């Protein structure tokens, strides 16, 4: 495909990144001072990129819509970050992390990118420890690890259930140092409204000051979009309320291809929804599956009794419980990858075994782990004759040390004590593997415009493994982008400061202002949330965990109807030039409506099941894998990169064929 060149370096996979770094262009330190880079988003990818680029000497302008860069939604990542350190001596290696990630992504990611990710993973841990990130440690003072789904080694570094917080605060502190030095100019409470392209290159953005409403022009020699994923297209997700796709969508409409929008991660362990007023869903970390066992009752009479409140889950005997993941996937058990665990939960609930009033909940039970840890602890503290109550007490303490904040969070939301009764969980939208198409250098199809972290599509294929998002965000920002961007900027050292007084900036600014004016003056009858909720319902019902051609076509039609009504009837109160949260939301939902349609179109096009994308038409008909997702490598071994053609329905498909030289393509089995 002429338009899509992934620019993968030649040579053996293990040498590609090293060779590439050795041969790409470098900007000399004196010239870096003459070059401006805009970074949109301050999560793990954007924050680490901004800090690293500023340390290197570039002038960085950093933008976030939150009131502080420290509040980007990476902060909420709980469980951990993977790295092939092999500190546990369980045979981990760069290759094994690479292999697990490609397999976990159901063979829909780009080998070279994933290998590089595995390669730099170890540097991330070193870097973070040097910054003062307080990872969990063992009594000998060395770093501790735990396991996550879809792998057979312990390679996950963590800081209780707040790993994302600690890593983000590390990146934020690195940013703060550069802000203090004046090398990063920080624009918090600013939203990127559009990208400005001059002579075919990304040369700046239009921003809106969310406090005053001021529209401003910012020029640069390169623009990095690190604005996160688009899970909020479902309205309900584990994303933050402000998480949005607008920066990524704006560059898409200016020429950046959007890849694999249908690859969405539905996370298996979230707190079930409780009512129509629900504004978001809360994740319970996958790390809990290290110690929690997932089950539903085996017998329908027990399900009914539980729903009627006649019995409690702890009253159900072990032999009357269906530990369905252990039953179906003995090799990986409760630690199967997220897509597999989510579908298995849906399968049981669809069959009628859901354990709450809505029928959409399964149990995550820590009773066995509490006893196991309690017995271990009793031996260590020389209490061989400890009573069962004492063992439970000791075990609960161990569980509290590991997951205390998660248990507390659960209790505050549900009013149930998970130390005494199993948690109720159900899958929810969590992460989007799809995103802006980028080449090996993380450059989009717009020269000088880069995408990093969850905003790009590059490393997770059709399903992301646990503890890999933090790894990818920081890899992109600390160790990939700072090198690759220099290769591009090396040819820009004579450009000088980019002027904002050009017709391109005039035009972009006018379009932004026109749209904002439209919202304020539309004076419709329905709130922005009204449309967002309707969009979310269509997405969840027809483009959610399980998809079919009929439903996807209906979804496209329904989204178009909502979109039309939105533009006719949306009501945005307040004024332009003030702090106006409804106006912010209106722009974001307008973009979600367009993305949602492309999402459904991509899901319809991909007539195979792979990773988080499950097409009911494509399942294994028989054999040991009967009923499992069936990939179609003959017809769909490609990345679908969509080009904007004026409307989502007219988007043009470009294919990046995926080649697998270092990993054999196989049916993914966790049995």
């Amino acid at each position, binding site marked *: 495909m002429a338009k899509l060149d992934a620019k993968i370096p030649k040579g053996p996979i293990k040498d590609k990144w090293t060779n590439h770094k050795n041969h790409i262009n470098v900007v000399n330190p004196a010239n870096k001072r003459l070059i401006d880079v805009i970074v949109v988003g301050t999560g793990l990818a954007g924050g680490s990129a901004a800090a690293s680029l500023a340390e290197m000497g570039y002038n960085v302008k950093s933008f976030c819509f939150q009131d502080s860069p420290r509040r980007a939604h990476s902060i909420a990542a709980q469980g951990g970050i993977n790295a092939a350190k092999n500190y546990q001596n369980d045979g981990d290696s760069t290759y094994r992390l690479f292999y697990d990630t490609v397999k976990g992504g159901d063979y829909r990611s780009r080998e070279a990118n994933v290998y590089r990710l595995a390669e730099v993973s170890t540097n991330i841990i070193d870097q973070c420890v040097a910054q003062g990130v307080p990872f969990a*440690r063992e009594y000998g003072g060395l*770093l501790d690890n735990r396991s996550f789904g879809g792998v057979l080694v312990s390679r996950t570094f963590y800081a209780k259930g707040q790993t994302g917080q600690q890593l983000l605060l590390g990146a934020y502190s690195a940013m*703060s140092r550069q802000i203090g030095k004046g090398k990063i100019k920080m624009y918090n409470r600013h939203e990127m409204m559009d990208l400005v392209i001059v002579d075919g290159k990304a040369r700046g953005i239009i921003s809106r000051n969310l406090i005053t409403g001021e529209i401003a022009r910012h020029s640069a020699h390169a623009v990095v979009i690190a604005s996160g994923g688009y899970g909020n297209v479902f309205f309900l997700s584990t994303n933050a309320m402000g998480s949005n796709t607008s920066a990524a969508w704006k560059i898409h409409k200016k020429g950046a291809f959007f890849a694999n929008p249908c690859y969405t991660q539905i996370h298996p362990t979230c707190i079930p929804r*409780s009512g129509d007023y629900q504004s*978001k869903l*809360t994740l319970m970390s996958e790390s809990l599956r290290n110690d929690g066992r997932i089950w539903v009752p085996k017998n329908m009479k027990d399900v009914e009794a539980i729903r009627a409140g006649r019995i409690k889950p702890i009253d159900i005997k072990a032999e009357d419980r269906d530990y369905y993941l252990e039953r179906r996937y003995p090799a990986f058990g409760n630690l199967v990858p997220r897509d597999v665990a989510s579908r298995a939960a849906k399968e049981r609930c669809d069959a009628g075994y859901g354990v709450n009033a809505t029928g959409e909940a399964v149990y995550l039970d820590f009773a066995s782990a509490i006893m196991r840890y309690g017995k271990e602890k009793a031996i260590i503290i020389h209490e061989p004759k400890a009573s069962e109550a004492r063992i439970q007490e000791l075990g609960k303490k161990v569980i509290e040390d590991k997951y205390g904040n998660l248990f507390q969070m659960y209790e505050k939301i549900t009013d149930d004590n998970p130390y005494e009764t199993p948690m109720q969980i159900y899958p929810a939208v969590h992460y989007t593997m799809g995103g802006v198409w980028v080449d090996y250098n993380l450059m989009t199809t717009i020269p000088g415009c880069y995408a990093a972290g969850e905003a790009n599509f590059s490393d997770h294929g059709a399903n992301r493994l646990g503890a890999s998002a933090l790894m990818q965000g920081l890899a992109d920002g600390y160790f990939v982008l700072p090198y690759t961007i220099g290769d591009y900027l090396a040819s820009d050292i004579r450009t000088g400061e980019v002027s904002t007084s050009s017709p391109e900036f005039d035009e972009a600014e006018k379009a932004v202002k026109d749209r904002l004016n439209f919202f304020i003056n539309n004076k419709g009858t329905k*709130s922005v949330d009204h449309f967002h909720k309707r969009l979310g319902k269509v997405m969840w019902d027809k483009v959610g965990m399980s998809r079919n051609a009929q439903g996807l076509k209906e979804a496209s039609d329904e989204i178009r109807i909502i979109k039309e009504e939105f533009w006719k009837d949306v009501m945005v109160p307040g004024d332009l030039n003030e702090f106006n949260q409804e106006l912010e939301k209106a722009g974001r939902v307008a973009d979600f409506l367009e993305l949602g349609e492309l999402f459904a179109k991509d899901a319809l096009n991909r007539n195979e099941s792979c990773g988080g994308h499950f097409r009911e038409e494509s399942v294994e008909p028989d054999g040991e894998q009967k009923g499992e997702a069936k990939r179609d490598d003959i017809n769909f071994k490609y990345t679908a990169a969509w080009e904007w053609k004026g409307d989502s329905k007219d988007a043009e498909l470009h294919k990046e064929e995926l080649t697998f030289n270092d990993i054999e393509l196989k049916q993914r089995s966790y049995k």
Partner: protein
Amino acid sequence: MTKNGMNLTLKVWRQKSDKDKGQIETYQVNDISEHMSFLEMMDTMNEQLISAGKEPVAFDHDCREGICGSCSLFINGEAHGPDRGVTTCQLHMRKFKDGDTIYIEPWRSKAFPVIKDLVVDRTGFDRIMSAGGFISVNTSGNTQDANSIPIAKDDADHAFDAATCIGCGACVATCKNASAMLFVSAKVSQLALLPQGKIEAKDRVLNMVEQMDAEGFGSCTNTGACEVECPKGISLDNIARMNREFMGASITSDK
């Protein structure tokens, strides 16, 4: 506790901008479920206002799971409301009862000027961080192996406990002096407890405290209210540690 359908009277601070004087407005919300979070109750109120053609109440919120530190409401005279160990977004309506009147105000502090309604400007915290809340290490693929410096588990755990501060500002809002000592001391402690942070420890504490004073935060008089209201349970021990660090640095620093 009622099962569902609480009717509540809300007394909400409305202020158009930092130049406006502001006043309490009264709103009625009905049929509020006990399972709602406090912010979902606020959403319901705002939907009502929008339907009535009025401007909704502005308030900061984002992750709605107690970790981003955006939400910042003073509810019935308490930062983050009546529950303990939670942020406003984790507060649930089961803590209230039918017929209650709830006062909802922004953080009050000279160093946190009101932007609009319940939204305040907390960028003073960012400036304190820029003054020294970091370890000066550049990004490099060649830092030493993460396990080359073992760190005693107790130190690592205490550093972690301090590092869990979410920067919400409840400590400042709660303190009768509007002191930011709990916030600043949490970062100073985290980094002072780790071998990597000890090298710059003196400059760090001096610079951060200087900036803290410049921002207009008040002094600490050891009342301890901040610790009680902190949603993350950041301990007063951190303030004691920062005082030691500050004293030591003041006496021995060359600057």
